[in-house]
Structures are given as structure tokens and as C-alpha cells.
């Protein structure tokens, strides 16, 4: 597993853990990050907002509302959050 893959797995685990605080059934399910989330679990607009608030508290990232439509799958969310969470690449000394 590459370092990037390992980082994504860790990030996905954090996302799933946050999601489980809103939708506890996530812990029992095998959520496929490549499929639309709302096709796999019941998540209404208030749940979705609570999920994003949870991500902000956990990762410090404020996902803009304009991005909501582009993040229907957890893979989309990982791709959006990865550069923000890991910060800019370190400059070579």
C-alpha cells in the first residue's frame, strides 16, 4: 500500500466514524465509498448537515454548500478533503 493509499484509508476511517455518530447503522454496514452514500443509508438533509458539522469538528474543514452536489460518494469526499487535511506539500529544504 502506498503512503497516499494509507492516508486515504485513514481519512476514510475518520469520515466513516464521523458518519456513524449521525447514522449508527454505518457500523453494521459495508459502505462502498465508490457508490452514492444516500443509496446505501438513510440520510436526510439534517443528517447530512450534522455529518458535515461533525467533519468540521473532527478535521477542521468547512465544506462549502456549493460543493454538496459534487460529494455524493465518500470517495468524492476523500478526494476533496485529502489536500485540505494534509495541507500544502512541504517545500524541499
Amino acid at each position, binding site marked *: 500500500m502506498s503512503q497516499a493509499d494509507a492516508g486515504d484509508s485513514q481519512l476514510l476511517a475518520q469520515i466513516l466514524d464521523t458518519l456513524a455518530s449521525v*447514522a*449508527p*447503522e454505518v457500523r453494521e454496514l459495508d459502505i462502498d465509498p465508490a457508490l452514492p452514500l444516500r443509496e446505501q443509508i*438513510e440520510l*436526510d*438533509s*439534517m*443528517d447530512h*448537515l*450534522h455529518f*458535515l*458539522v461533525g467533519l*468540521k469538528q473532527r478535521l477542521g474543514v*468547512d*465544506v*462549502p*454548500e*456549493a460543493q454538496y452536489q459534487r460529494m455524493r460518494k465518500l470517495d468524492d469526499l476523500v478526494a476533496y478533503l485529502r489536500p485540505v487535511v494534509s495541507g500544502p506539500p512541504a517545500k524541499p529544504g
Partner: protein
Amino acid sequence: MTDILLPSLGPEMESGKLLRWLVKPGDIIHKGTIIAVVDTTKSAIDVESWHAGRVEALLVQPGDVVAVGTTILRLAGAAEPLAAPAAPTAPAAMTAPPAAVTLPQPSAGGEHVRASPAARKRAAELGVALARLTGTGPDGAITVGDVNAAVPPPPATPPATSSAPEDRRAGVRAAIAASMARSHREIPHYYLWDECDVSRALQWMQQQNAARPVDQRLVLAALLAAAVARAAREFPDMNGTYENGQFHSGAAVNLGVAVALRGGGLIAPAIVNAHALSLDQIMQQLSDLVRRARSGGLRSSEVSGQTLTITQLGDEGVQGILGIIHPPQVALIGIGTPRERALAVDGQVMVRTCVTISLSADHRVSDGRRGAQFLNRIAALLQEPEKL
């Protein structure tokens, strides 16, 4: 000495299971202090005290199932010295079978058979003819106990300790069934609906949200709830309760919001005094209520006293909902899914986002013309979202 009774935490609630006490003998409590957690089959509810004083005795034990109206806690009277020991003045109440406690209700009177409202409700549910019973209450009024005594006892005592998910789901369904069957039986519904253009409201909301952190953002449900609360204040005949043959207009708009529970079923806690809250306050309370409805921690004042309910199925893809009124309320607003529509506006066809807003109302209290005006007012308020 003041007795605190198990309150009714919803129109369909007959009894509740004490999960735990949050106070103990000797504690000083105030009005609004959360004293216990009670399971109503739908949800675990934090029960607040409506009285202040020093706790003298806890009269039921965790795990006990007791009828609504049962004395669960005794406060020492103001005239009693504070140093008085918490004498076990009601040992019988602590050891008596909880389910056997009869709901003390004042006699309703006024009709050919004297019976308490709770007894009438119970009789209707069990299919018992009140005229065939002999009342043992004040002035011969028929009590819930009289009604219960008229039918064979259930095969087992109520499930005092079970909280398995399947039992919870069954309990929720039974509670909903009782309430909805009563509504269908007693309330002459009429229904109205119309499409409401929410394009401006959505556009305004998106502008607001673009400048807000995620934990301060709005959802359309909050705007709709605010519009309904404002309109209800102007239409008192849509906001209140119908009990004992009389309509009582609500002094405030305590807006019940139907929340789907994750295990199935729903609960409709109230945004209390919704008419007096700002849009941001309504959003905050809505968010908090939904979270606590699904995870536990609703308070007794939030699950009783609703004067109007709004049910939103905007996330489920249906066009609209013609709902059943939650008795004893007299109206229910239903909201469908926002959808883009080709609308003719000022002679031009435009694509607008619309939702179907419906009204289910009690014909004993209002008529269709009045209901139409109410719906129109909600729609008008949504055209000026900045004023909500």
C-alpha cells in the same frame, strides 16, 4: 407536600417506564429541573418538574412501568421544615404493581355518560361501550380503571425491562397506530394543497449559507417551519387543540416537527414558542430536536403541548403528503420534495423550484376557505425569506 405525577408525553401515551432518577431525596429542585428519564415506547424522554421544592420521596423504582398520572415523586411542602427526614409516607405506592395504578382524572361530565377524557379514549381504543359500565370515580364517573376492568387482562404484564430494537419498533408502531386510528375516527379531515414557488427562498438561503460556517447554515426545512409558525400566529383556528368538544386556540405556536426515527416510526417534538423565534433560532432548535429525537434526550415539555405539526418528506422524493392530524391538534402541514417546474410567470415560461404544501385540517374548527387563506399566507411569507 406536592406530588409530581408521570406526565402524558404524547396523546397516545398510556404509561411509561422509569429508566432512571436524576434526583434523590433531599435534593432541591426548581421548575424545569430534569428529574427522571422515562421510556414512552417511542423514545427516552427527560421529564422536567413543573414544581419547585425539596425531594421528599421517590415513589417508583427504575424499571417500573406506571400509568400516566401516577405520583412518581413527592416534594416536601413549603411549610415543612427543611430538616425533616424524608419519611416513607407512601410505602404502598412503592410496592404496588405499577401497571395497576389508575389514572386520576377529573370527571368530564356534560354528556349522558360521565367519564374522564382518558377513559373515553381508552374505551374507544378497546371498543368498550361506556354506557354498559359502572363508574367508580367522583360522582360515579367512569375511570380508565373501570374501562380496563371491563376487558380481559392481557396475557402478561407490560414489558418492564425490554428495550430490544424489535420491541422498540413494535412499541413505536403501536403508539402511532393508536394515535392515528383515533385521529381517523374522531377528526373530520379536509385537505387542501398547492404548489409553492420556493426559488427565491432557496436562492436567498444559498446566498446566506455561502457566507456562513457549516454549523450556522440553514436548511429549507427551517424556512418552511418559520413560514408556517408565522402564518399560524395569524390563523388561530389552525393552531390549537380540540378536546372535550371544544376548540382551544394556542396561546403560542408550539410547532411539532415530525422526525423519522432511524429504527422506523416517527416522533413530533415541538419547537416551543416558534412564532416568537428568529429564523436562526428556529434552525438551531430544529437541528437540536432532530439530533435528540434520534439519539435520545428530548424533554417532556418538548413532546407534549404541540399546537400544530409540520411533516416534511422533501428528502424522500414524493410530490406531496396528505397527512393525518395528530390529535388533539386541529391541523397538519405537509411538505413535498422541491422540484423544478416549468411555470408561466408574467406570460413567460420559466423554470422554477416548487414544493407542494398541503394542509390537513379539522372541519369541526375551520372550513376550506379559511384553510386556503392559511396556505396562501404560508406561500406569501416564503416569497420574502429575508423577513422570516
